[in-house]
Structures are given as structure tokens and as C-alpha cells.
């Protein structure tokens, strides 16, 4: 445990130093993460205003609240591991990692958290600035606000495990681009990035709840905005727990199988 803690501290330092070198690429990632929710915010607000400021239970101010919270939740939970893993496998960068006595997922977790610690304050300021422009309407439900933080943390864990497992596809194919694109399309429609899930056709809502997608992004947003009953919130936490268990199993199985096929191309 102590050793693991030291590993995390060390990885924090390394990641931090790396990030300071690549500030520009961090900012570019963030532009995309701000722009996409803002575009959908504007589109849906326009739709709401055109139909008497009410679309499926959302006013334009509700849409503003939804997409600004989405921006933060998406930022907290996102990973870039699916882009990076292909590179690691192709260039043989994985070889030294395999020699270390700890599971490589720890380095990635620490790396991810460091990056978020640096960028999250900026994202929050951006969200507040956009809030002044788009005037969101927040319904304050005290218990839901308290429950939001754990739901966000669990959403991060679910998304991290799922994306880390998918990233391992790079062990078997060097063309992960198409796979990643498929995944991002599913995320767009099923995790609530394009529209609140309640506006989607019923079969999409069912699929999103049956798969991990809803629990990775949409659930914490719905919770914070006071759109869930306590019972629905409990179901959500249960679903997150189940997907974390599944994700842990998946990481273990896929990682073992992947390492066996890895032959260090380029090393």
C-alpha cells in the first residue's frame, strides 16, 4: 500500500512535468471539450425557444444547466488512453512498463488525475463564464448535490475501466482508429453527450441503461440537476457498482491475454 502511494506521488510529479512541456496540446483538447457541449446547448436551446420554451421537460435554461454540467462531468471522466495505447504497442514503449513490479494501470490513473487537477479549475472557470452568457437554471435538491460527488467519482472509475480495456484492442490490431470512432459515436448518443437521454427514442434509453454508457456520464448530471428520485439514484449507484466489478474483471482478462500476444514491435 505504502509502495503504491509512493508510486502515485512519483507519477504525479512526472506527469506534471510532462504536462508543463505540452501545455498547448492540453489546451487543444480542452477547446474541443468546451465547444461540443456549447454547440449542442445552442442547438437545443434554439429548439426549445421555437416550441414555447419547452421540449420534453427542458426549458432553454434547463438545457444550459444540463450541457454546462455535462461539460464538467465529461471533463472529469474522460481519458485519452485509447489514443495512447496504440502508440505504446506500435513503438514498443510498453516494454519497460512490463518490467515494473506493479500493474501499469496505476501509472495511467495517476497520470489522468494529475492532468485533471491542473485543468479542472480552468474548466470550472470556463463553465462559470459560459453560465453568465447562457443563464442556466439550477433546481437545488440538497441530497442530490451530496450524492453527486460519489456518483461522479464512480462514473470516472467505470469510464476509466471501460476505456482502458478497449484501449487494449491495440494488442491485436494496429488500426484502432475505426474502433475508437465507433466507441465515440456510441458515447455521443448513449451517454447523454448529444442530448439528455430522456429526449432520445425509448430503445436508445434502454440500451444506454443496459450498457455502461449512461452510468459513465449522464447519471451524475441527471442526479445533480434533481431529475432523479432517491430510488432511481440508488439504482444508478447499483449499476455503477456492477459495471465497476465487470470492468475490473475485463481489465484483468484482456490485459493477460493482450500481454501474451505482445511481441514488442519496434523494440
Amino acid at each position, binding site marked *: 500500500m505504502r509502495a503504491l502511494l509512493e508510486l502515485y506521488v512519483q507519477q504525479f510529479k512526472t506527469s506534471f512535468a510532462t504536462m508543463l512541456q505540452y501545455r498547448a496540446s492540453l489546451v*487543444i483538447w480542452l*477547446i474541443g471539450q468546451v*465547444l461540443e457541449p456549447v*454547440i449542442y446547448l445552442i442547438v437545443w436551446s434554439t429548439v426549445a425557444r421555437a416550441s414555447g420554451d419547452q421540449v420534453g421537460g427542458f426549458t432553454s435554461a434547463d438545457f444550459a444547466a444540463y450541457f454546462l454540467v455535462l461539460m464538467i462531468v465529461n471533463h472529469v471522466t474522460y481519458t485519452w488512453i485509447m489514443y495512447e495505447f496504440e502508440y505504446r504497442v506500435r513503438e514498443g514503449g510498453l516494454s519497460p512498463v512490463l518490467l515494473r513490479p506493479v500493474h501499469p494501470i496505476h501509472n495511467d490513473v495517476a497520470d489522468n488525475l494529475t492532468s485533471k487537477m491542473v485543468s479542472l479549475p480552468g474548466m470550472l472557470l470556463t463553465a462559470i463564464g459560459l453560465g453568465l452568457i447562457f443563464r442556466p437554471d439550477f433546481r437545488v435538491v440538497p441530497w442530490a448535490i451530496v450524492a453527486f460527488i460519489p456518483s461522479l467519482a464512480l462514473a470516472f472509475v467505470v469510464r476509466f475501466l471501460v476505456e482502458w480495456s478497449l484501449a487494449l484492442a491495440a494488442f491485436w490490431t494496429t*488500426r484502432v482508429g*475505426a474502433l475508437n470512432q465507433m466507441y465515440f459515436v456510441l458515447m*455521443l448518443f448513449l451517454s447523454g453527450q448529444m442530448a439528455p437521454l430522456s429526449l*432520445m427514442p425509448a430503445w436508445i434509453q434502454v440500451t444506454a441503461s443496459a450498457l455502461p454508457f449512461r452510468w459513465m456520464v449522464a447519471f451524475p448530471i441527471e442526479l445533480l440537476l434533481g431529475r432523479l428520485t432517491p430510488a432511481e439514484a440508488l439504482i444508478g449507484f447499483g449499476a455503477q457498482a456492477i459495471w465497476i466489478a465487470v470492468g475490473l474483471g475485463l481489465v484483468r482478462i484482456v490485459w493477460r491475454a493482450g500481454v501474451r500476444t505482445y511481441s514488442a514491435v519496434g523494440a
Partner: protein
Amino acid sequence: MSTLRLLWVSFRVGVMGELAYRVNFVVQLFQSIVGLGTALAGLAVVFAYTDTLGGWQADEVVALVGVYILVGGVIGAVIQPSMEEFIESVREGTLDYVLTKPEDAQLLVSIQEVDIWELIDIVVGFGVLVVALARLDERVGVAQAGSFALMLLAGGAIVYSFWLILATLSFWFVRVENILVIFQSMYEAGRWPISLYPGWLRFGLTFLVPVAFAVTVPAEALTGRLDGTSLWGALGLAGVLLVVSRLLWRTGIRRYSGASA
């Protein structure tokens, strides 16, 4: 004439280089179709709740998406790979080889690299456009078609000059490709009618990164929304930027001293 001939040569080199990787064609085709399906499904969700979006009907927005994919394909097939290659060659010093050739160096640099699989997007975008137009038939006359073609050319010239100006800055600053990546992510916003956006965002998408001229203005021309001011504005801006980028190119090339030589 020689421009077309050189473009053809670049294209053939691109084909020869890529034919070794034929699976890429299937992968790219798959990705283009998924991209198109995503865009159309997104429109279907939005238009399930409304008939018009900021005054645009569903088929008109589909036409806009067609223009978006088409122009994105042109940028991805020729402009972006050529400019990236150019920036790289300034850093590596291999621009020397281009400068020794007996053709205009700006022209050579601008069409030196053709990503042939991106041409699929041009075809897909054109296809979407034709289908959308067929469904809108009564409102697209010869005048609209003509001004659409004109605005497409002007938009292309503006986007090209914009990239060339930024890429030319690499004569002074070594790292400029980040600005170009920002264009890529801002381009996403062109998928929807720009008139939806609030003033500050519209301004940014018109003058900071010319997404409006590349996508929205041609689509407006096609759907009969374009007023004279925008038309002449686009033509004027295209002319000015072509001249400015040319002048900047000349200044830059004089400064280039060949890092490797």
C-alpha cells in the same frame, strides 16, 4: 494548366503510395459512412422535436452537412496534408528540394501531398448534397447553383489562404501546427447553421477561423439565403487573403535559410 498537371502528379504519387495499403480504403470508407450516419442520426433526433432550426428546414440542414463533409474532404485530402508536410519540411530543412524545382514553389508546396482516401469524403459529401437538393428541388434554380459554385470557390480560396498564412508563419516560429489543430476542432461547429450561434461565437467562426465562409456561406447560397453583402464580402475577402498570403509567402521564403544545408 500546369497547376492541374502538377495536382495530377501529386495525386498519382498518392495513389501509388497508398495502393500498398488497400485495407485503408475499406477502413476509411467505413469511417466516412459512420461519420455520415452519426451526423444524420443527430439531425433526426433534433428534428424529431422541431420543424425548423433557426429558420432552416431538415433537408436544408442536410444540404449544409453535405457541404460540410465535402469541404472537409477537400481540406483533408490536399490542404491539410500538404501544409503539414510544408511545416515539417521547414523544420527539417528539406524545403530546399522544393525550392530547386523549376515551378512556382508556393504552388508545389500547396499540392505536394494528396491523401487519396480523404477523397471518399468529397464523394460522400457530394452525394449527400445531391440527395438533399433533389428533395428541395423547387427552390434551387440556376442562379442559386451558380452562386453556390462561386461561394464554394471563394470559401476554398479563403480556407487555403488561411492555412497557408499560418503555415508560412513557420518560417518565423517553429511550432505552428497547434493553431492548425485548433482549426480542426473549431470546424466541427460548421455542421450547424452558424446563424444559431450568439454573436461572439459567430464572429470567431467567421474571422478568427473561417468556418463560416467555408461551409455556411456556400450552403446559404444554395438555399437562397445569401444576400449581396455576404456574396461580395466573401469574394472580396478571398481576393484579399490570396494576395496577403502570397506576399507573406514571398517575405517568408526570403527569410528561409535552409536549416539542413
